[in-house]
């Protein structure tokens, strides 16, 4: 089996395994913002899958996993374009 496909599958398995274990506590910056009670401005843009969930599926495991998988593929595609742009032209792609 293609090594690259194995790597992509491994990323999805990684997400499926770790999403339920992930901490929902605020991160370092969010904690600092909460501690000092900063009033946040209204954001300019709310994204399409804000908080890594698919809106219609609510805030569930499936919703987060699906958002993660979609994001993984989006980054894979963008990364492929960037990689191609940076790689030398006349060599075969090494897997």
């Amino acid at each position, binding site marked *: 089996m293609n090594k690259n496909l194995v*790597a992509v599958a491994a990323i999805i398995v990684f997400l499926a395994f770790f999403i339920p274990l992930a901490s929902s506590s605020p*991160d*370092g910056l969010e904690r600092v913002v909460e501690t000092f009670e900063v009033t946040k401005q209204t954001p300019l*843009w709310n994204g399409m899958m804000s908080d890594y969930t698919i809106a219609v599926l609510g805030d569930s495991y499936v919703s987060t996993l699906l958002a993660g998988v979609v994001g993984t593929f989006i980054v894979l595609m963008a990364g*492929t374009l960037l990689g191609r742009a940076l790689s*030398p032209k006349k060599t075969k792609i090494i897997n």
Partner: protein
Amino acid sequence: MHIPDGLIATSQPASITLAIGMWIVSIAFLAWSWKKAKNTYSRSITALLAITSAFVFAAQMINFPIAFGTSGHLVGGTFLAVLLGPYAAMLSMTIVLLMQAFFFADGGILAFGMNVFNMAVIGGLSFFLIKLFTKDQTSSYKRFIPSVFAASWLSVMLGALLAALEVSPAFAGGVMVTVPSMLFYHAMIGLGEGAITALLISSIQRMQPAIMGGLTLLKGRTKL
């Protein structure tokens, strides 16, 4: 440490100037890294770049608990820098941040220049920290993984320090509150970053030495 637009006080000139300034600085770094990265590789890096970027995206979704009801996640800048070199790492992290900001509203649009600098530029530049720490060629193999750990920790601390300065106009107490508190939490988050990065790199070194063999970082320095 993704800065949301909510922390850019659009009513304050200092805050908005800083945001625009960081956009300009980051674009300059990205243009430089693009130029450098284009002439670096003798073979295709497409698969490696796409997969490592996707992994960093996925890993950033998983927060690990630290202490005091606070969490952190892998940033992955040093991880990318080791595998891709400093220049491609900056660009790779930038696409991760761009997709996060655009699709997931994780990190702001106004704050994008700040986030690119704090995570992508600093992360990429951490490559040179590893180089500095492993300068003594005879011991560089032994020092490699500890250097990766140290560079990862420092990259998080430096990113957090910059983030603390950048968001300070939104805080009544300014830098006097943001700097110590950001560094306090990120000193711990950085340990996670260092441990995860060191573990990943040493595993790749063992399981896929071919990837590591082509690294500019270790070329002529160590035998794997």
